[in-house]
């Protein structure tokens, strides 16, 4: 009988494998996990998968595929094999992210008040002031505690040497944290014995910590400020997460139509009249949050909210205008930003990035288009992207014209080989799939991170794309004491 890992296709020369080291032996912190999985028959695996599927379905953790008469609801694919991170490794990630978020917050605070970093010529001003997400309406507005980015979810990857690199800083309304929490619940149900063999750091306190963070930024001195979650509504793909977090924090989940602004104060509409709101954890983008200031056609927002915010009568998490700091062009300056504000060297490196707006870089980009990944600075979700090694000469030629026409809008990075991790293709076959890691940083009075995060996995063979819309799934992520 062949066993589960007998045909596992780790290629340690080409990719960093999370489980199997270069000499072909399992890494120490994965040994118990491998032993446990080898003991399980395909029937055992199937039974556990069924248990997990029922758990997710009953919780309503589904996302909807539209376009059909009845929206088809799918379960976000969950892989049963957990990703394990030893504590010392985690501590480096934690220090690196806190350093990075602290510096990025300093940067935002500076950009909206004083713009010292531009005057000192660390970043060309046109790159900041010309960014699509720079909100000139907020120059001079200081948010409570001077904090802009209360919730962030940075995407980390590992290169072929196993180094953790930051791929993206998500500073606007990052999602996925509910999967981190639910994956853990599912894993505890399906593998209680294995779970017990490891000392897994808990993540369950995240909602309490989020609530604490939100209460800390309340502009009102009330001991028990009123916090609400603002969602675009039931048809948003992250709706489940919005309602789950509201429920776990014990606060109201509101839609734009539940809120009303009167005399620059924000209220909820209730069966007993209006009630004052102090803090809004908003999961609605800047563009849609107030039709009087941003997109006038938005029905998701609250008219007058921004003025109430500017008056200091309500706090928003995250603040308005944080997108300027996760612009892909600004991203390339983050190491300089860290050095400038903190006078420290970055603990976590960036992925090497060339800016088309820099003539020297532009030359390099155009000469190496077949080896690079070129991205539009302000797009997300894979739009406006060229993957060099997979492109045709004609595509490259066309893309080169676009880059030359609008260099500010493009950056290029080497094609990175994400680290790989064994994952189930079906009940008795595992394969090496590419993964990334999104830990969640909370920032009220001080920044903090719950030990864990969302590990996304590309479940299509050979695919590098971990997005859920492209066949991606997720894993539980264990930070363990060794």
């Amino acid at each position: 009988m062949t066993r589960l890992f007998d045909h596992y296709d780790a290629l340690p020369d080409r990719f960093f494998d999370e489980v199997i080291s270069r000499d072909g032996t399992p890494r120490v912190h994965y040994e118990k996990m491998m032993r446990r999985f080898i003991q399980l028959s395909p029937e055992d695996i199937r039974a556990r998968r069924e248990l997990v599927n029922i758990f997710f379905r009953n919780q309503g953790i589904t996302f909807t595929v539209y376009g059909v008469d009845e929206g088809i609801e799918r379960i976000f694919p969950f892989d049963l094999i957990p990703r394990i991170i030893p504590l010392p490794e985690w501590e480096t990630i934690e220090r690196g992210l806190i350093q990075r978020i602290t510096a990025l917050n300093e940067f935002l605070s500076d950009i909206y008040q004083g713009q010292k970093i531009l005057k000192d010529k660390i970043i060309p001003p046109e790159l900041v002031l010309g960014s699509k997400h720079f909100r000139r309406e907020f120059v001079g507005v200081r948010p409570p505690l001077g904090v802009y980015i209360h919730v962030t979810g940075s995407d980390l990857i590992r290169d072929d040497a196993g180094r953790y690199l930051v791929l993206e800083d998500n500073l606007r309304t990052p999602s996925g944290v509910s999967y981190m929490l639910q994956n853990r619940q599912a894993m505890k149900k399906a593998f209680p014995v294995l779970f017990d063999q490891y000392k897994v750091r808990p993540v369950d306190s995240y909602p309490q910590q989020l609530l604490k963070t939100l209460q800390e930024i309340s502009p009102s001195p009330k001991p028990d400020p009123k916090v609400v979650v603002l969602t675009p509504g039931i048809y948003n793909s992250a709706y489940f997460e919005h309602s789950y977090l509201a429920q776990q924090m014990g606060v109201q989940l509101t839609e734009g139509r539940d809120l009303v602004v009167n005399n620059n104060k924000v209220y909820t509409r209730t069966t007993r009249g209006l009630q004052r709101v102090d803090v809004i954890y908003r999961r609605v983008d800047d563009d849609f949050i107030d039709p009087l200031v941003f997109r006038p056609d938005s029905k998701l927002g609250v008219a007058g909210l921004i003025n109430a915010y500017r008056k200091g009568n309500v706090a928003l998490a995250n603040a308005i205008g944080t997108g300027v700091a996760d612009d892909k062009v600004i991203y390339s300056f983050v190491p300089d930003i860290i050095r400038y504000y903190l006078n420290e060297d970055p603990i976590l490196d960036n992925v090497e990035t060339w800016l088309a707006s820099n003539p020297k870089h532009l030359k390099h980009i155009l000469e190496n288009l077949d080896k690079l990944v070129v991205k539009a600075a302000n797009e997300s979700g894979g739009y406006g992207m060229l993957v060099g090694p997979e492109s045709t000469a004609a595509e490259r030629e066309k893309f080169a014209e676009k880059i030359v026409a609008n260099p500010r809008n493009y950056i290029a990075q080497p094609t990175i080989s994400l680290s790989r991790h064994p994952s189930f293709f079906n009940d008795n076959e595992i394969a090496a799939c590419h993964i990334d890691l999104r830990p969640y940083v909370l920032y009220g009075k001080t920044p903090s991170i719950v030990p864990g995060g969302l590990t996304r996995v590309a479940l299509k063979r050979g695919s590098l794309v971990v997005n859920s819309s492209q066949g991606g799934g997720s894993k539980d992520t264990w930070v363990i004491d060794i």
Partner: protein
Amino acid sequence: MLSRVAESLFWMSRYFERAESTARFLDVNFNLMLDLNSITSVDHPNYWKPLIMVMSNLENFDAHYQEYNVQTVTDYLVFNRQNSSSILSSISMARENARSIIESISSEMWEQVNNLYHFLQSVSPQQVHTDPYSFYKEIKNASHLFQGITDNTFSRNEGWDFVQIGKYLERADNAARLVDVKYHMLMPKRGQHLDLVKDSVDIIQWMAVLKSCSALEAFRKVYLSKIDPDNILRFLILDRTFPRSITFSICAAQEALWRISGSSLHRYVNNVDRLIGKTDAELSYTTVEDIYHKGVHEFLEEIEQGLIRIGEQLHLLYFAYHTPKIEPLDVSEALPFTGVAGGRANWSQSQQQQQ
């Protein structure tokens, strides 16, 4: 409580009750058909058409089907999504409402709505035709389980009261429609008592009406085996202790409304409480002779119209997203009568939200 959340609780409960009522009517009608087959030849349209009159409207049905028989009516009332009060539509709407307030209800409530929805998705029309008994039982039990779970896992606050209001207003409305249509079909001569032998077909039919409200045993305890129309009207309309009678449902809805507003007997603080108090008083001080005097259809029609206005005022007072304007209603504002067959549309959520 957020107005939107209150509204969704109300409709979630209301749609659940609606699905249950539809299942009851179909179940009983199916059994009735089997009973009558042995006595007399069953004239399908006459047995199935009234169900459409009670639970939906004829025009919409005619747009989809050629004739009234067990297959078409079952399909229309159970599976048809174009019928906004089919069991599938009702449970989908109950679930959409629940989904939009998932953080406000207990997870057990959500699981129950969700389970029923997934059960319905998995059932084929063929299964319902071959084993209707099990299917309808499943729906009825699911509804009871939902209300039971709600009673045992949901805090007794305003939210729970809106769940009660939704359930009981829908139940009162369904009971009024059922009696109205069946009385019309089986209309006996005034004051006539049925002869057990001669009128066995009618008796079986009246028993079916009682059964569809789970009222047969409770009825017998009060009136023994005297199955005559007077007693049946008395029981289904006026009984104060049976939980599916119109009077009981109105009282239960009224109590929930009072808990929310602080109104009490003889003292109302808003228009909803005034209107439901009026309906309650009408029922409380009416005898079955009064009902005959007015005309059974006219009496029930007045109850149904009253329920529609209660629903409208409830919407304005607690759910509407603007400051409620409370204006006195007078007779001239009463809605035009559309008859039993066309009245149903007044009771759907989307129409109220457009106001």
